């Protein structure tokens, strides 16, 4: 049996969820033998595999057009999509900007910054969406791992269950926001 293909992507979030994933300690050794890490900020593979993957863990909320596009690719090419952490599940901190028009936001942050000399990044960077959205508002999501970040044990529990071909049982304290 071939290795299970796993990808992780990082949208609007602080990378804390990826850190928490790495915090699963010795389980990583077990995982290393069973999974093949595809596109992931950890491996620095930047292109989502053409042939698709079995599982994708998505950290972060959807805040700009590039993330929206990639989220759709993720859905199209993944058998299972997991929202990893509160930003992906609820929008969380990145969503605090919702309600402020993106233009005002950009002007405030870049226009008044000394390092950018007031240049506004309209051209090269992806356009901001009017609102930051949780992942499931954009694509269908199969499982939700709550927490800011989700506890390492919770991530291990979910991933290991999937590797064993089981449905991860996420109940009670597993569903704790924050």
């Amino acid at each position, binding site marked *: 049996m071939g290795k299970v293909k796993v990808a992780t992507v990082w949208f609007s979030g602080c990378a804390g969820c990826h850190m928490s994933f790495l915090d699963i300690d010795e389980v990583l050794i077990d995982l290393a033998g069973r999974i093949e890490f595809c596109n992931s900020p950890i491996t620095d593979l930047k292109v989502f595999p053409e042939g698709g993957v079995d599982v994708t863990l998505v950290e972060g909320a959807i805040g700009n057009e590039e993330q929206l596009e990639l989220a759709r690719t993720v859905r199209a090419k993944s058998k299972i999509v997991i929202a990893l952490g509160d930003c992906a599940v609820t929008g969380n901190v990145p969503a605090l900007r*919702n*309600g402020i028009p993106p233009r005002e936001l950009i002007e405030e942050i870049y226009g008044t910054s000394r390092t950018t000399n007031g240049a506004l990044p309209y051209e090269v960077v992806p356009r901001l969406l009017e609102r930051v959205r949780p992942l499931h508002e954009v694509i269908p999501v199969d499982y939700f791992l709550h927490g800011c970040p989700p506890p390492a044990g919770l991530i291990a529990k979910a991933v290991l269950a999937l590797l064993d071909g089981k449905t991860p049982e996420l109940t009670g304290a597993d569903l704790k926001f*924050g």
Partner: protein
Amino acid sequence: MDKLRVKIDGRTILAAPGKTILEVAAENGIHIPTLCHLDGLRDVGACRLCIVDLYGQLVTSCTTKVADGMEIGTQTETVRAYRRTILELLFAEGNHVCSFCVSNGGCELQDLACELDMHSVRVPYTYRRERVDATHPRFLIDRDRCVLCGRCVRVCQEVEGAHTWGFAERGATARVITDLAVPWGTAESCTSCGKCVEVCPTGAIARKGASNAEMRKHPDLVAELTERRARG
């Protein structure tokens, strides 16, 4: 007086007349989720989370008195699904990105999400943006986190007798206000007793300087107070 015979989740239970379904269930170790209910305060049945199935009708257990022969389901599929939808609606209308519960776990809304198996909020969030009122020297209110349970209003009215808190407007714009919608710090009727802080189920009403890990609330204080007062 004679005990009544009721059936809760298939269990036959003897109950004293005049008690609510919620009280009888609690006395018998059957947990029903609640939010606007608080021991010691008048029940209003506003949050609808304590709904139970009574012959196919959904009634709030905090306000429905037991009657002989009643058959009640507290965990039926429908009841659980509706409670979860209602909870999702609560999450969607406010803004519960909050530093409180992350640190101290002391949020009843967070507990309900775990209890009711809420995996995600399926309706779009509103991302409400209300101003924080920190004009009171000791307390503050962040209305984005308010779930309009009305516990502050009732405790202020029924226990403290100050009537500082009240409701204003209606529908989606309904909110709790102090006096005639003046900044809390200038609300003359407020006695600064802090009971509203203790009963608030979320991080909406908080003590200044203790808004994170240090913040511990004591909603059970009210029941204690009312009991003691009754004893005189």
